[in-house]
């Protein structure tokens, strides 16, 4: 195993078509410190989300009007809001919807985008035309207004937001995967599969799909960042799930209670920083991974 590793390690950077194990797929982190930092932060957020009930000292929704607008203290490390709710606990619980929206949207975007790209690229012709016009159509939709309308039509819940984000973000993955498939389907190994008698389905999913998987991962990781950002904006604008404790929701509450005018900086700074750190780390991972797939970007 150690011998194959060293061989693969040298080829992984240049030979994107080569098979790479999970271990090499994350090997770029050794060189890319920003990407590594991104992984650390994102892992931290996921751990916080999973263990939120253990970590949070208070119920994030528990009000305590005697302790409203308290600045950070030993009892409330990040202070309290207008109803005396603990900001730190809200922040910890807010990691849950962020992770949920981020991961589910990314998974759905990857799944839909990849399949549309595979089918359009492989079959070409009318199917390709139809699917790509659909992509063009999706590109024409203004992002935030569309999400707001969709959330307004249905009940405001996290799942509606996931759905809305998915409906908008699959377009880019589909386009990129399609162009990769156009190239891959002309490779002799596809011809070899056809000679062996493989069906279209087999060729698409066994022969072509594994070769576009890295691209799908890449756009999936960007989708995580976009999804978290979008969820925060929607909640901030007041279209979020009113029952959920999310970072965007916290910002919205802070705005409505005029936290800035009351010098309660801790109320909006903390969720703002949390959103920023999470989104940036997802982007950094995507960026580092993209450089690995496409070494020219390093220059």
């Amino acid at each position, binding site marked *: 195993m150690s011998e194959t590793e060293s061989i693969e390690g040298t080829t992984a950077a240049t030979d994107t078509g080569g*098979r790479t194990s999970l271990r090499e797929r994350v090997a770029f982190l050794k060189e890319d410190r920003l990407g590594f930092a991104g992984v650390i932060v994102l892992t931290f957020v996921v751990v916080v989300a999973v263990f939120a009930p253990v970590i949070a000292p208070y119920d994030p929704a528990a009000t305590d009007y005697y302790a409203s607008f308290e600045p950070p203290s030993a009892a409330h490390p990040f202070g309290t809001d207008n109803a005396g709710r603990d900001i730190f606990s809200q922040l910890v619980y807010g990691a849950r919807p962020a992770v949920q929206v981020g991961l589910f949207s990314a998974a759905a975007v990857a799944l839909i985008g990849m399949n549309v790209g595979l089918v359009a690229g492989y079959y070409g012709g009318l199917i390709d035309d139809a699917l790509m016009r659909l992509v063009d159509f999706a590109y024409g939709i203004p992002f935030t207004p569309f999400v707001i309308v969709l959330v307004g039509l249905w009940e405001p819940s996290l799942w509606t937001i996931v759905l809305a984000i998915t409906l908008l973000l699959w377009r880019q993955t589909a386009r990129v995967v399609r162009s990769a498939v156009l190239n891959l389907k002309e490779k002799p190994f596809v011809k070899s599969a056809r*000679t062996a008698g493989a069906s279209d389905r*087999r060729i698409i999913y066994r022969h072509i799909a594994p*070769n576009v998987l890295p691209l799908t991962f890449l756009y999936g990781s960007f989708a995580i960042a976009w999804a978290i950002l979008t969820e925060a904006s929607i909640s901030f604008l007041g279209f979020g799930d009113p029952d959920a404790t999310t970072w965007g929701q916290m910002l919205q509450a802070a705005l409505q209670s005029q936290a800035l005018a009351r010098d309660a900086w801790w109320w909006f700074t903390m969720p703002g920083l949390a959103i920023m750190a999470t989104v940036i780390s997802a982007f950094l991972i995507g960026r580092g991974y993209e450089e690995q797939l496409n070494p020219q970007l390093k220059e």
Partner: protein
Amino acid sequence: MSDATALDWEYDGPVIEAEGLSKHFPQESGLVHSLLGGETSYVKAVSEVDVAVEPGETVGLVGESGCGKSTLGEVLIGLQEPTGGTIRFLGRELSAMDDTERREFRRNVQMIFQDPYESLNPRFSVREWVREPLEIHGIDDKQRRVAQALRRAELTPPEQFLDQHPHELSGGQRQRVSIARALVLEPRFVVADEPVSMLDVSVRASILSLLERLVEELDMGALYISHDLSLIRQMCDRTNVMYLGEIVEHGPTERIVRDPQHPYSRALLDAVPVPNPHENVSEPPLSGEPPDPVDLPEGCNFAPRCPFAAAECAEEPPVDAYVDDDGLREAACWRIDEIAADAVPDADLSVASDH
């Protein structure tokens, strides 16, 4: 393979036989052009070709790149549909086959590809790659068959290669994996499309002798495609010389190599480099590119580049315009007797080059 019943496995004629085979690709002409009533033009990749391959025989197909050799190979194994002519596999016409027969045909014709670096899927291990045809055709006893195919391709011991991926293999080993994959189904007919052109000269010989031995051992028919007559000479009993989609000369390989008749075959042979420093390097016998296969010249396709072209070449010669006394060799040229009478001066050849 004994469960196969639909086709006539005892057929004792050629394993594959094509008559008047054509493959013309329509040119994309654009909407405006076709609205204005413009005619669709065709790229004539393969025109009116006759080939037959007997079991246990390797037939050569030689010509410069872009002449339609690979297209012919792909049409013969059913990767592309012909636009004209017929193909018979074990005497059964391809276009008349039902689904069962078509599946059996699919299983019994295979291809070995040119580029060992692109023809293996980088994400498959050797085991998965060689095993896949068996999975597709639902053939049992996979493990044994895979090991046997690898041993036949001289990847021994098979266990050493089963879990390797293409990037861990050398070019020659990759080509052996391709061969194992093609042979694991024990096909009756194999097209080898320049199987060694991308390999080091040092491994070519071993791959070629491997192919030669396997054709004999498995009693397959093989079509060996190459642009290199010296390799064809080593491999093939009979050879077809192809120029712009047409067979211009065919017959026993030795006869074509020693005494080519068609001017194009002569030029092709003159182009084979001689590994002898004392040999004078003559002018390249053929200059210019083959004409665009979209609008081919009237008459003989080769006439524009032919040093011997004359008035009669305005009419297209059939492949049997010239036939050897014993009927074994034919060439598509009107002027072979006149050309043979002249002593083929080299100067003539260089004059023919158009600038």
